[in-house]
């Protein structure tokens, strides 16, 4: 049973990592740090809604750590980590009050929270409060990309929950 769980989580981590690395090849949409599709979050959302918080968190952390390592951007780790954890927390809370059909909304709030977490980390690390000027545009970006990844995740949950759960 444990071995199965390990394999399943590992496969999902690999999927997330692949998406993450592929997305890196897409040129930046806007020259603003933090504006990106965040496709790898489809996996996090899917995992959270089918497997539960423990597995989802493990997959998320492994993906962030290995993603930073593989992309050679270890300096971005602190931003990814604070964004990832804040968005995970928001999703966890929303999961309690939202139904499976409203999963897309959880993803929107999670994406916005992700960007907020990144800005908070950036402001703390660079000691530059004026970076908050990026908050509105990153919120817009979070809503849009969150909708997209949310819809994809909702689709994945519908189709895969049977496969993943057993």
């Amino acid at each position, binding site marked *: 049973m444990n071995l199965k769980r390990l394999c399943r989580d590992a496969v999902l981590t690999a999927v997330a990592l692949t998406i993450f690395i592929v997305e890196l090849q897409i040129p930046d949409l806007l020259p603003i740090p933090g504006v990106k599709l965040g496709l790898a979050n489809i996996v996090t959302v899917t995992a959270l809604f089918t497997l539960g918080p423990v597995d989802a968190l493990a997959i998320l952390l492994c993906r962030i750590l290995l993603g930073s390592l593989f992309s050679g951007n270890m300096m971005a780790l602190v931003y990814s980590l604070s964004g990832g954890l804040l968005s995970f927390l928001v999703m966890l809370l929303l999961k309690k009050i939202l139904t499976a059909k409203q999963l897309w909304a959880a993803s929107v709030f999670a994406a916005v929270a992700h960007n907020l977490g990144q800005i908070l980390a950036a402001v703390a690390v*660079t000691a530059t409060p004026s970076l908050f000027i990026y*908050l509105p*545009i990153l919120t817009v970006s979070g809503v849009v990309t969150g909708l997209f990844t949310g819809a994809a995740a909702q689709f994945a949950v519908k189709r895969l929950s049977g496969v993943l759960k057993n």
Partner: protein
Amino acid sequence: MVKTRTLVTIILCILLLAIAASLFLWLRPAGGRVANVYLDGELLYSIDLDALTEKKTYTVETDRGVNVLVAEPGRIRVESADCPDQVCVDFGWLTDSAAPIVCLPHRLVIQLTGETDVDAEVGG
């Protein structure tokens, strides 16, 4: 459980507010052409872009990496950098925007303001 209509309304409100705020913040001119360059939040250079008469290059090197800044009369940009994301280079010229150029991996921020980040200057 929360109604879907409520969710849609909240998200729409957030989206509209964020768009309005973005437009307000981004279309607002910086109100000056002094480029303050910060590393780790501390002022590194304070360059009066309007007082420049020729192109000047500043190399900011730390153990995290290198950013090469080019300042010309009225504008400044990151010409090259060895950071992985290249967001700072892709930003292009900073001429009159309140939004700063940021290189998060190297913790470098370039911000235009009305005046230098010092209150007075001594020299002799």
